[in-house]
């Protein structure tokens, strides 16, 4: 099955712009299902982005981040063709990771 992560990292000059989209329900814990029961919270807590063995960006998310969350940031020092690693973990201990080439 395909990864839960979509990553786009593009170098322009000395800056790499990174956009990521993660497939995740991000259930807040405040929404009821059709039977009227609260859907328990199920959301990503931490997303780490690493380049050359070093963290370049860390996201800490609460239940108010939208379903299928999206984030964009940029950092300096990467070259085209370098690896960028993304990994996430949620409040149920589920996780996923992806390594993508910077374009």
């Amino acid at each position, binding site marked *: 099955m395909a990864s839960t992560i979509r990553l786009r990292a593009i170098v322009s000059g000395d800056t790499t712009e990174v956009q990521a989209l993660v497939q995740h329900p991000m259930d807040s814990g405040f929404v009821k299902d059709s039977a009227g029961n609260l859907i328990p919270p199920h959301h990503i807590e931490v997303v780490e982005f690493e380049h050359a063995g070093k963290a370049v960006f*860390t996201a800490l998310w609460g239940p108010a981040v939208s379903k299928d969350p999206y984030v964009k940031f940029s950092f*300096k020092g990467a070259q085209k063709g370098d690896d960028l690693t993304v990994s996430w973990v949620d409040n149920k201990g*589920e996780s996923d990771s992806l390594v993508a080439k910077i374009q």
Partner: protein
Amino acid sequence: MAKQHNRPDRTRRLIVKAILAGVGLGLTGWKRARAADASLWLKDAFTQKTEADAIKALYGKDAEASDQVKLDAPEIAENGAVVPISVSSALPDVTSIAILVSENPFPLAATYKIPPGTSGMVANRLKMAKTSKVVALVESGGKIYSASKEVKVTVGGCGG
């Protein structure tokens, strides 16, 4: 639709960790899914019920309003479930950015760690339960700067 994580649950992951530790990390050639470090999450800050308490839990100090913090959010959210919000700052040495939605049950929505070399900018999409003040906090040189904006929500992001 069933989601396909194919990941071990937390308990199993802890067991895997314990086994690895017990073997003295002799299994370096093993391929295993990387997971982000769950211990980084700030449970205390994310479970505060007011904006002020969340800021205190996050930084232990108050924020001062600054025009050096740029918060981009819509006037009227097209849908409270998906509100695009971005924060940027030209301040030097930004070390973190946080975004709070004052009227949400837990105001702290997201916080980002910005190491040296990474720009003081982030864009994301947040849920808003109702019309609320959105607050952006930027940590720079050990001080906390803020900007805020009212975003109108007529279809809340907490509905079914």
